[in-house]
Each structure stands twice: as structure tokens, then as C-alpha cells.
């Protein structure tokens, strides 16, 4: 998904507002707001801005990291130690993603007139992020299991 244009566009607010990841983009927040595309929309000017911002290489890099972590975790039957490291890296990645809930204003419903806005009302982007709580727990569990298997085998 991270190799698709619309997905790369959709993570721009998350990355641009993050103090840990904003350095990956060339333009600071909130400049991106003027160049956001809706899913499925193709506006050449906005895509050109995203190209100059480094939106697509960053998204591709994240995709490569995600696939690599998946492969590392899947190596559990052969190399559980690698699987444990992959799970640990996934924990770090999940924590980074969950930090977007704090750093990204778009994670919560904006105040546009509806009384239900701000915390705890998650927007679409916020709901996308909050699922990483499951990833965090699952990664912790697989890390413990893989480490246990490695210790057993190497004993």
C-alpha cells in the first residue's frame, strides 16, 4: 500500500507533524494542507508538490521497512532470534505510529461546528493510527515467544 500514490499522500499529515519524522520531508507543516489530495484524486500540481516534498520516496522506504519486518517475524521457525529482533523493531514502529495521536491535529475531529470534536473523537486518520495498539501488543507477544524459543534451542 505504501507504494500507491494515495497512501503516500494520506500519511503526509502524520509524518509532517511528527517531531521524530518530519525531517524526512522537505517542507514543514502545515504547508501540506494546501496540497492534500482526496483518495483517488489526481491533481498534477499537488503530485508535483509531493514529489518535491519527498512524499513518495519516504512512503516507499516505509513500505520496504514494513515488508522487511514482516519477513523477519515470519522467519520464526528457522531463526527465532531474527524474529524476536523483528518484533522488537515493530514495537518501536508501533510506538512511533501511536505518537501520531499526540502530534497530529488531524487525528481528532476538527472543530467545524459539530459539538463532537477534539479528544476523544477520533477522525479517520486517528482511527487508522489507533489500530497500532493491537500491533504493539501482538509484537510484544511474538517477541517474547520468539525469544523464549531461541533460548530453549540454544540451551
Amino acid at each position, binding site marked *: 500500500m505504501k507504494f500507491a500514490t494515495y497512501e503516500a499522500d494520506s500519511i503526509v499529515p502524520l509524518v509532517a507533524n511528527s517531531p521524530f519524522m518530519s525531517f524526512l520531508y522537505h517542507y514543514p507543516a502545515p504547508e501540506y494542507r494546501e496540497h492534500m489530495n482526496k483518495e483517488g484524486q489526481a491533481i498534477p500540481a499537488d503530485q508535483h508538490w509531493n514529489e518535491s516534498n519527498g512524499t513518495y520516496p519516504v512512503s516507499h522506504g516505509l513500505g520496504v521497512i514494513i515488508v522487511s519486518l514482516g519477513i523477519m517475524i515470519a522467519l520464526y521457525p528457522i531463526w527465532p*532470534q531474527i524474529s*524476536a529482533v523483528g518484533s*522488537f523493531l515493530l514495537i518501536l514502529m508501533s510506538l512511533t505510529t501511536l505518537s501520531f495521536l499526540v502530534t497530529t491535529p488531524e487525528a481528532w475531529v476538527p472543530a467545524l461546528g459539530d459539538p463532537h470534536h477534539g479528544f476523544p473523537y*477520533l477522525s479517520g486518520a*486517528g*482511527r487508522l493510527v*489507533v*489500530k*497500532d*495498539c*493491537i*500491533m*504493539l*501488543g*501482538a*509484537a*510484544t*507477544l*511474538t*517477541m*517474547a*515467544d520468539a*525469544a*523464549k524459543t*531461541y*533460548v*530453549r*534451542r*540454544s*540451551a
Partner: protein
Amino acid sequence: MLVGQRGASTLLWSSRVVPRLRTDCAFLRENCATRFGSAVARPRKTNGSISEDLYTSQRSDARRDTMAEIETAAIGDSGLTMNGATGQSKVSAIKGLYIKAATLDRFGMAMLRLGLASSWYGLAA
């Protein structure tokens, strides 16, 4: 102190109780031989959670056992055999990290439940 033994005790008690450590290898060998028919302890289960084994199905058994027997069983359950029961094993720092990580299974399960609950709130509530 046997590092493997320390790890096994940590796995057994999962930081709820301060582990009692034993260094009497001859005593452990004797107990392993009595219990498993071998000088080196073997896992009673090769799959599943150690803490689950010992906190649920075997907790009542464990209470009846002596402390020494519990520790011996823990070493067997964790698979942390003692390199021929010589007690001379030295675990590297990296392996120590793996042993620490192996104790996080209950924490991981708690995190997973918390994650499911919070995601359920976010996606469905």
C-alpha cells in the same frame, strides 16, 4: 550464580515474587534425575507459555512441591538446561536480553488485550 538458573527463576515467577536462587548443582542434578530420569532437565511441555503452565494448571501442584523441586521444574520448563548441569554456563549479554524478552509474554498478552479494547473503542464504539 547460574545465569541460566536466574533466568529460569525469572521466567517462573514473572517478577511477582523475588526468585530464590540456588547454586547447589549436585542437588539440582539429583532432583532432575529423580524427576525426569536424566541429569538434565527436560521441558514437560515443548509448546505454550511457561508462566501459563505454572500459574494455572500446575500452580496447585507447585504449591505442594518443595521450593527446590519448583526451581528444578522451572529450569526444565524453560529449557534453560545447565550445559550438562555443570553450572559453569556464562550467558552473553545478548542472550541475557533474549532471556529478559522471554519474560514479557504475560505483558505482551496484556498489551494485546489493551490494544484490542482501545482499537475497538476507536473503530466500533
